[in-house]
Structures are given as C-alpha cells and as structure tokens.
C-alpha cells in the first residue's frame, strides 16, 4: 500500500531518509536535501561573495551532484560565487576517457566552464605509463599523491580561490575509521575538518560532509543526473574497501552510525605532547609539504630515475595516545584482521 509523505503534503513517499527515518515524497526530499547543504554552507561560512570556486569533478556521482547542487544553490541563495569544473586526467585508458566525457557533458548541461589538467602535462607521466613501470602494486599511492597536487595546480591555473570536493558523510566516516586504525593522528585531525588548507595552500572544503551517500545516489537517480560509475581499472584499495563494507554493515543496523563516527572523529583530542608534523613547503616545487621535498617530487624523481621503490619506504607513525574509547577499541578489534592487508600498503604521515 502506498505510504504518504511524512510532511503531510499528501503526496506519495518515495524514499526513507537514512539520517532521520522520514518518509518523503520527491519534492520534499529535494527540498530537505538542498536545504541541508545550504545550511552546511552558511553555518560554516564556506563561501564569500565574489569568490571563484573550483569543483573537483570526476564525472562520478558525488562530484556531479555537487556541481548541480552548488549551481542551483548559488542561484537560489545568491552566494555570488563563480563556479568552475576542474578535472584531472590521470591518463588511464578506458576509465578516465569515459568519465571525462561525462564531465564534458556536465559542462554543457550546467553551463559551467571546465578545465582539465593531465598528469602528463604536469608530471610527464600518465598513470598507464607509471603502471607499466612499477606494476599494479602501489600505483594507487602514486595516483592519489599526484591527484591531490594536480587539483591544486589546476585550481591555481584557473585562478580559483577555493576547491570543493564531493566527499560525503560516508567517505568522511570511513576516513576517520582508517585513520584511527592506522594511528595516523595528523590525518585524523584534518579529515573531519569541513575546510582545510586555510593556512597557505588553497582552501578545500566538503559541502557534503554531512550528506549521506544513499541520498546523493537517490538524488542523482531521481533527478536523472548524468554521471559515470565504474571502478578504476587499476587495483581498488583493498583496505578502504573493507572499511567501507564495515561502515555499510554498521549503517544497516543503525543508520546514524555514519554521523556518529564523524562526531567521534571531531571530538577526539590530541595530547599536547604529541608532536605533529609541521607544514612547510617543498624545496623543489613549492607545494605545501611536511617534508623538505614533497611526496610527489620524491615519487617523480624515483620514477624518472627508474627506481620507484625509493618512494615507498616506511615512514614513522605518530603514536596513538588517549583516543581509544571503548567503542573504538571494539572497532579496532573487529579490524585486526584487516591489518594483515595493510602491510601491502604504504603509509605516510
């Protein structure tokens, strides 16, 4: 039998919001979804009038919905910002080609300027070439480090004041979990921040920090937004995959788990005596870095010298102090098995 909308609008409910368990019709869902993001933007003062904002656009569901919603809210609430789509071309045949096509269609659909920066022009290496050189192992690390810088450099090229990314609540919760498990305090502190990099590099923000993945997918589906959905052809991150599956299990038992984990991450405090890595700049490229030479430059040099192994040596970990509440201990116990997997991965502090 049809369920009617919780908002008493007499329309038929189409979905159940995971965060609030409200049963909403499409109109009320769109309204609630958009209003919530608007409130996040306003409460955290993410944008100033006149700013130029680069949307990290991968063609995937999150960034596609982000570009759509930001354009809509910018017009509806007069943020006065200029939006630019910014895409990184890693040079992965068959994967990035298709997703870039999606971004190009989005550019037409949303009438936003688009800038594509490629690994090849920035680093002289495509991911395909890197994989040929170093094999399938560790290539995600290269790709991740390069992508981060590529977005920043692209944003500077288009003279953006800020970068927004489509990281959603599920992503943030997953990152909190992973940083707890790895004892990576520097990242744990940063990963829940809605805006980072205000001290030097281009600020980055996550307007979807509190937005559930389920709602993003539903929104994209019902609005018939054009997005691209497939796995990167090079190995997916196994550890992250387990963390995500675990998070989804938790969510299916108690939907609020996701925001709960984000709040836990926000509330963790770090003892003063824990030494945090200091942020400086890379002596080679000038990019923000905690070492004298940034990760990308180290990797690039080893690639060019034909010695990719150099780049992935173990680095020290900051010690975990005082953050293990009972809840997290249980999670850590649950995850012990995954630490086995982690050995194959590379950790940076």
């Amino acid at each position, binding site marked *: 039998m049809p*369920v009617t909308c919780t908002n008493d609008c007499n329309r*038929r*409910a*189409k*979905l*159940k919001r995971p965060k609030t368990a409200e*049963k909403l019709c499409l109109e009320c869902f769109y309204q609630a979804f958009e209003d919530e993001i608007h409130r996040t933007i306003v409460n955290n003062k993410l944008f100033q009038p006149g700013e130029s904002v680069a949307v990290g656009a*991968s063609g*995937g*569901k*999150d*960034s596609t919905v982000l570009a759509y919603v930001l354009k809509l809210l910018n017009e509806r609430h007069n943020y006065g910002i200029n939006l630019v789509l910014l895409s990184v071309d890693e040079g992965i045949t068959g994967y990035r080609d*298709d997703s870039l096509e*999606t971004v190009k269609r989005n550019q037409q659909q949303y009438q936003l300027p688009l800038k594509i920066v490629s690994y090849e022009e920035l680093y002289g290496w495509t991911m395909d070439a890197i994989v040929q050189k170093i094999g399938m192992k560790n290539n995600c690390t290269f790709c991740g480090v390069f992508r981060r810088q590529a977005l920043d450099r692209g944003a500077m090229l288009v003279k953006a004041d800020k970068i927004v990314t*489509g*990281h*959603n609540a599920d*992503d943030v919760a997953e990152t909190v979990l992973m940083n707890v498990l790895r004892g990576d305090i520097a990242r744990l502190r940063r990963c829940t921040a809605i805006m980072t990099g205000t001290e030097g590099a281009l600020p980055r923000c996550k307007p979807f920090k509190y937005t559930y*993945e*389920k709602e993003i*997918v*539903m929104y*994209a*589906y*019902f609005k*018939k*937004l*054009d*997005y*691209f*959905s*497939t*796995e990167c052809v090079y190995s*997916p991150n196994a550890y992250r995959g387990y963390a*995500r*599956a675990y998070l*989804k*299990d938790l*969510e*299916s038992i108690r939907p609020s788990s996701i925001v709960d984990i984000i709040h836990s991450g926000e509330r963790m405090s770090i003892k003063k005596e824990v030494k945090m890595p200091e942020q400086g700049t890379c002596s080679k490229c000038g990019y923000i870095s905690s070492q004298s030479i940034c990760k990308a430059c180290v990797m690039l040099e080893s690639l060019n010298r034909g010695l990719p192994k150099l780049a992935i040596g173990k680095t020290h970990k900051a010690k975990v102090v005082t953050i293990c509440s009972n809840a997290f201990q249980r999670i850590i116990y649950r995850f012990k098995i995954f630490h086995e997997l982690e050995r194959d991965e590379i950790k940076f502090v």
Partner: protein
Amino acid sequence: MACCAISGSIQAQYNSKVILLPFNFQCLNNSDSFCVMLWWPLQQALNVTGNGQAYRWDMKKLISWIKENLLQERPELFVQGDSVRPGILVLINESDWELLGELEYHLEENDCILFISTLHGG
C-alpha cells in the same frame, strides 16, 4: 512481467554475460535493453515455476534467484545473507524498498526492480 536491472559496479564485475547495462543513468533510463536481458531468464524461471503463480515471489526469493542463476562469479559483491549487500540501493517501481517491506515485498506483474550500487565511484 517483472523486470530488473543491476546497475553500477555489479554488472562490471559480472561482465556482459549476465546483464548488459549502460554505465550511467542517462542511458539507463533511455534504454530498454537492460530489461530485456533479464526479462528472458526471469521469464523462463517463472514459467518453470508455473504460470502466474510465480508472481507471488517475494524479494527474498528474487534475490536468491538472481544469485543462483545470474551471478556466477563473486556473488558476495551482490548478496549478503538473504539480502543485498549493504550499500546496494533497491528501488521497486521507483520507490525505496525500505518503504515497501524490503525482503517481504511480493512481486506484482509489471514491477520494475532496480539495484544501484553505491559502493564506489565518487
């Protein structure tokens, strides 16, 4: 006739012999091909179980049928226990199945079931 589509990563993992689906929703909404692909085996299965009667299948039965008949490789990417793996959204006639009793929902003629994987692809 009930029709189903498995979207996103799933069919990528299960390759084209299972369900050929365009990758994005734009194509998905414009194309009937995905319905046909599953329509066939599903109809055959329903015919075997007896005309018409088979529409009394519930979602639980449908999911286990998909697992047994369509997903030869790595079914754990789609099913977990009796249900779909957490992170896969299910729409029944364009409505969230959480409003419709999930596994207990009984299939009706002309129902359209859509599985959307959210597990990756930001």
